[in-house]
């Protein structure tokens, strides 16, 4: 495997040979990934390749049948999704999963609760600590909304936002958990070309601003190739290759996975003539 020589001795996210099988179906086999701090990494593959399954394994929705996952040296195996979020792993969802009846501001505020120190008694008594933390949560949430350009809609219900804004709100909400690693599941899905260009700039800028490490799944090749420093290609749950965008684009296995096996020309011609 053509892994780059590790500039950072210890990767932020270290995934070692995780596999999962649903009954007889091996959805993901021996998936390995090392993300150094600040990396923007792409995960691509045809439909049903197991990309979202990898996300669900990383965030704890599924339990891998074998393998190890660690975040800054801390093993994540056996942790519930909420504990992984607390450890610094945040995600967005392929099919947007906002809290539709809560306001835009409240959607972000929910994700801020991880930092709070006040107890339930403090909540019910409205202690001075609880009051201070609630104010700090509002300030912080509004900052994040401002960065994502959603501050003017903070009082609207999340369900009433246009699609592109909903995607950005999901990112704002994930950032509110204060992550080390951010997993983006098809952030460009359903966006128009202009929005896609803005999204690329935005993802880069939040990576720098919050010193994040980002892993993203994306079908839009323009976004993936223009944004990611390295790319992993999955097909049928198996890693086909890993490398820079240029390397991946030229790799015959990748082309095969997306377009099918090369076929003799006369066979194609015969089929077309019939």
């Amino acid at each position: 495997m053509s892994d780059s020589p590790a500039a950072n001795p210890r990767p932020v996210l270290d995934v070692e040979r995780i596999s999962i099988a649903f009954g007889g179906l091996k959805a993901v086999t021996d998936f390995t990934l090392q993300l150094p701090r600040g990396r923007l990494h792409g995960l691509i593959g045809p439909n049903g390749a197991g990309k979202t399954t990898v996300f669900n394994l990383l965030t704890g929705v599924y339990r891998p049948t074998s393998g190890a996952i660690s975040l800054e040296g801390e093993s994540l195996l056996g942790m519930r999704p909420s504990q992984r979020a607390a450890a610094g792993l945040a995600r967005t969802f392929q099919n947007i999963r906002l809290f539709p009846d809560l306001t835009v501001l409240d959607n972000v505020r929910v994700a801020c609760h991880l930092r709070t120190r006040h107890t339930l008694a403090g909540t019910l008594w409205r202690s001075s600590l609880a009051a201070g933390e609630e104010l700090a949560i509002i300030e912080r949430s509004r900052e994040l909304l401002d960065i994502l350009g959603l501050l003017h809609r903070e009082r609207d219900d999340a369900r009433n936002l246009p699609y592109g804004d909903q995607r950005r709100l999901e990112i704002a909400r994930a950032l509110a958990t204060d992550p080390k690693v951010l997993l983006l599941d098809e952030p460009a899905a359903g966006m128009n070309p202009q929005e896609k260009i803005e999204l690329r700039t935005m993802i880069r800028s939040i990576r720098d601003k919050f010193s994040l490490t980002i892993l993203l799944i994306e079908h839009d090749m323009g976004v993936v190739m223009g944004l990611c420093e390295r790319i992993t290609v999955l097909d049928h749950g198996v890693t086909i290759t890993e490398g820079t965008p240029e390397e991946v684009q030229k790799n015959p296995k990748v082309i095969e996975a997306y377009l099918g096996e090369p076929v003799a020309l006369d066979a194609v011609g015969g089929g077309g003539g019939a």
Partner: protein
Amino acid sequence: MAQHRGHDAFHARANALRPPFALSLLRSAWPLFACLALAIVLQLVIRPMMPVFAAKMLVDIGTSIILAVSLTMVNGFTGQFSIGHAAFMAVGAYVGATIVYYGSFRLFGNANMHGGLLSGMIDSRNPLPLFSWADLLFLCSLLAGGLAAAACGYVVGLPSLRLKGDYLAIVTLGFGEIVRVLIQSQTTEVLSNPQTIAATPMYMWPKYSGGALGFSGLPFYSSLFWVWVFAGLTLLVAARLKYSSTGRAFLAIREDEVAAEAMGVPTTKYKVRAFVIAAFFAGIAGVLFAHTVGVQLNPGELGFLKSFDILIMVVLGGLGSISGAALAATILTILPELLRQPPTIWPWGLIAGVVLAAALTPFSEKRWKPAVTIAVILIAWEVMRWTARTLGVDLAGYRMVIYAIALVLMMILRPEGLLGIREIWELRPVRAGGRGKGARR
């Protein structure tokens, strides 16, 4: 767990924003004092001016509000479907009643009412102190009933709230039946001889709680004071929860459990938390119910039918709306009583209707809607009375039928509940025909 980079910055900012201690104390405490003062005024000043019947209605409304608002924390906030709320009420009622009844025998030698002015509904006693030791006994029984119910809530909630979907509904329904049958299968004996009671060890008291015949001879401690202090407390706790990090986590679970978990909300822990708090207040409502004038504590009355009564209040008020649940609890407690002998709408019904229509008009997109709805209700009411008089029918016999029809109509006309998921204080006037900021859907 390792500390985050961002956390220290956040904590520093939170510390900078902390209100001064004195101000914070004042903000935390004033609603409690306001609620206490209001309940005292209600009991000592307003009640003597009221007919006993009206005071009893107010006690029933207060108890219903405690039950509906506490169930809102589970069914409305976290979106879990509990249909065994009356079971927690029963646990509280029997624990509280046992303590008050047998405790009174130990302390006073009989189970008569020994409370001060703040307890009880009827002034048949001599000049009394404001507060007596018996009131303290009642307060202890209220807290004990609440805690016992909360403990049951924890035991029932911990395994069933791990699971998604309808499990909780089935488990709570089953728990309700278990509690009812357990109480019914006890001996029907209630000890009333001071010597026998003195000879019976404390842990045997719950056995002698009347079984299927009901726990008779309980003193009537519940008063406007006790009921409304705890109704106020329930409303305060619900409101403070809703507008806090914890409350938003509850709402997030209702909205999308997977997303809530991914955003760091430990969903099982928070669901259990909401369930235990709700059970605590249901237990307190049970103790209040057991010691209300005209109530004979009976396990049959606290079965699943009672649970559904409470559930109807929550759904009708609007799932998740505290004020909606309180409003529905008030309406649904008054309505069956009002239907016993439907009064004419002239003049009070008409005046109330006009005021209500005027108040609601700015909040409706279609300006004519509140006025027309209220006019239709008032006309239907008079038509119903006129028909009954003409046909010589006694409406009291049909009151539960009319009550049920009213429920069906309300659910058809406003399926999202009276207030939807909003609170009364969150409603904003809407521009006619358009969608304003406060408009829903």
